[in-house]
């Protein structure tokens, strides 16, 4: 199983990196957000606006990139690649995990790029905080990608996948407080926001980047991310293996 996962990961990763077009456009929106929206935010939040905004953009990236991962498997299903792989002895779990691993690694690459662009604008982060922050993105991205694959294989309709996924991902993004801090929200909105895992991700990321490693916020964020990943991967693998018995 680990060997098959590794083989499929390498194959998928090479394909993804070969398709530079998709890769660049995947990261373009968050970077544009940073460039066109970030400076404006400075007027409201003062000089440390980048410290608030860069973690938000990273969460935006983590929602958009793995959240639409399922699109790729529908493409493979349409071309018969998925069925071909299913007749090989490769473990069913590896067929899913190889892809999830690719999405996670690609996301980490994109995140580093976003941080580099942020640094050019004056965003500063301690090395330990950076590493903790990137580690925090891993379970969020992996869990979301697994859910996205499960959803795509249940839906099986390429033309419906993107609109339906956006209907889920965009509210998650707004509720996470990634773009504007939830501290300004009315009570009910704050409560709804606290029911979504990405809210904790954003806050933990901000804590890590600010060097507040001992804070409860960081611990809570890591715990929520890991619980989310375990639940999502369980649902993902169940759906995947059931559809692929």
């Amino acid at each position, binding site marked *: 199983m680990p060997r098959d996962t590794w083989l499929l990961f390498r194959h998928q990763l*090479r394909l993804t990196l070969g398709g530079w077009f998709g890769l660049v456009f995947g990261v373009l929106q968050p970077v544009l957000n940073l460039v066109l929206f970030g400076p404006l935010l400075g007027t409201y939040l003062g000089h440390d606006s980048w410290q608030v905004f860069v973690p938000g953009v990273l969460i935006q990236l983590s929602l958009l990139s793995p959240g639409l991962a399922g699109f790729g498997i529908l493409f493979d299903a349409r*071309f*018969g690649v998925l069925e071909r*792989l299913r007749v090989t*002895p490769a473990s069913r779990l590896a067929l899913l995990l190889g892809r999830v691993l690719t999405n996670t690694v690609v996301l980490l690459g994109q995140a580093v790029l976003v941080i580099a662009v942020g640094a050019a604008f004056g965003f500063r982060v301690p090395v330990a905080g950076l590493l903790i922050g990137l580690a925090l993105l891993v379970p969020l991205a992996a869990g979301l990608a697994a859910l996205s694959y499960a959803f795509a294989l249940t839906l099986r309709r390429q033309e419906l996948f993107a609109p339906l996924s956006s209907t889920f991902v965009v509210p998650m993004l707004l509720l996470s407080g990634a773009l504007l801090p939830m501290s300004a929200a009315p009570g009910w909105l704050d409560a709804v926001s606290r029911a979504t895992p990405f809210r904790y991700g954003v806050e933990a990321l901000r804590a890590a980047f600010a060097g507040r490693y001992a804070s409860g916020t960081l611990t809570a964020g890591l715990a929520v991310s890991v619980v989310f990943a375990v639940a999502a991967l369980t649902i993902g693998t169940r759906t995947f293996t059931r559809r692929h018995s």
Partner: protein
Amino acid sequence: MDHVIEARGLAKSFAGADAVRGVDLTVRAGEIVGFLGPNGAGKTTTLRMLTTLLRPTAGTATVAGHDLIADPAGVRRRIGYVAQGGSTNPSCTALQELVLQARLYRTPDAPARSRDLLAEFDLADRPIGSMSGGQRRRLDIALGVVHRPAVVFLDEPTTGLDPQSRSALWDHVRRLRDRHGTTVFLTTHYLDEADALCDRVLIIDRGRVVEEGSPEELKARLGGDVVTLEISGDVPHARSALAGLASVREVRVTGRTLRLTVAPGDRILIELTRALDAAGVEPLSIQHTRPTLDDVFLALTDREAAARAA
């Protein structure tokens, strides 16, 4: 192990609709067997069950020595499957797909094996999106046999290909069996394909195997030979002279032309001309044609329709 595929009562229904209704099959090692039937007959569904992709609603099967239900992983290791709609990512190159496939089967020296297959199937390592339909189909088959399976399942291997690509592909399929002893189980809705390629043909219609035999046997049993005669004189008289012969099964008359369905045999023309001589009838022309599988198919569907009407 002489029987590579042995299926009993294989059936599949989708939401109450029966796609396959109790198929029995036996395929021996080294055979090329054709599953012939019109669209919607249940060919793909049967193949997807035999290749572990679909769980049968009923029935049992042993494929390449492993039980389909109890040991699907064992079946997968020993079979190859080439799906009807293709199996490759257009943005990959041929070699990328072959090497991945070879590694997933743990084939020793995957890159070398992949390059051998490119040569064997007359392919270059190009992006798959830039390949012709025939090249892509050959790559599909190469992917299905990377691991030298005991049996390869081909679902409509030549549908949509031009005549040259079709006959090139047939050569490759024959070579798989002749050189490597691979058992081939293919589906087709082309009678000429079954005729050209298969040692044995199973005809499937509405989810059931309705006839089985070598192409020759089927033609002899169901088609019969056809003799077309043109008569100058008394047509009804000629008709009654010929209809009485033991080897004549059926006579149809259109104008001055008699179309006879006869038992296959080399002496049939001599017999017919003698009978016409004795009756004092002069034939203007006489033509003897061997049946095609098309005739078999028509005869079968006529028979089925008659059985349903009764």
